[in-house]
């Protein structure tokens, strides 16, 4: 399983983390789930509602998520994952990330932003079907050509 994403979307989610530094950014990956992994067709920035602790927490309001989901459906896209940044912190999932992960089959992308500069970006697939058997599994990020882009 791999996360398939265009260079432009990959760069954009990393840039988002630099813009919000020293706070965490967050957003949604829209696309399609296929046999070889989740394919991202668009990323959508979201607001971080955790203004009380934005340097090490993020939360997307459910209503904003619903609106993103509605807009995605109009384009034939589903939510296939999320992204957020870890300011001055490794690009590894934290115990908080794991405890708050409930979107099975989706991909959680984390970018470490060190001193304002995006460093590593890792993708973790949430496997399992229940809170008891869920697990994060790191997966390769495969940069794909955008539609219409020459090989």
């Amino acid at each position: 399983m791999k996360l398939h994403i265009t260079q432009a979307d990959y760069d954009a989610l990393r840039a988002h983390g630099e813009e919000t530094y020293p706070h965490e950014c967050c957003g949604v990956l829209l696309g399609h789930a296929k046999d070889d992994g989740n394919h991202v067709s668009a990323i959508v920035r979201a607001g971080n509602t955790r203004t009380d602790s934005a340097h090490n927490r993020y939360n997307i309001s459910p209503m904003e998520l619903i609106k993103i989901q509605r807009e995605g459906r109009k384009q034939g896209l589903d939510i296939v994952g999320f992204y957020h940044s870890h300011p001055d912190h490794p690009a590894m999932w934290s115990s908080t990330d794991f405890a708050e992960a409930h979107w099975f089959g989706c991909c959680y992308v984390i970018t470490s932003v060190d001193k304002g500069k995006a460093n590593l970006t890792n993708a973790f697939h949430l496997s399992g079907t229940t809170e008891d058997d869920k697990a994060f599994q790191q997966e390769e990020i495969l940069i794909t050509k955008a539609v219409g882009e020459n090989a």
Partner: protein
Amino acid sequence: MKINIPTPLRAFTDKQATVEVNGATVQAGLDALVAAHPELKNHLFTPDGKLRSFVNVYLNDDDVRYLPAAEASAVSADDELTIIPSIAGGAGRPGVGASRVLCCR
């Protein structure tokens, strides 16, 4: 009414993104959904029948938890329910709140 199913729960609705059910209240709609797709029950509800804390249910644009009648709120055939699991996290440890931590796990 129409119930929108989030991607992680479609494994239990035969991959359907929306499910049509009949019911006069939010609770009746959810009950009808679970009756049609029993595997959803444990994902949506605690053993004592309450919505799991990370499962949000919206009636159109309103969070059902904050409606005056909550799950007993009346619905019409044109209404839309949306089940949306929460999305949150961050580098900090659970329960640590605003304190900065250095270790991931």
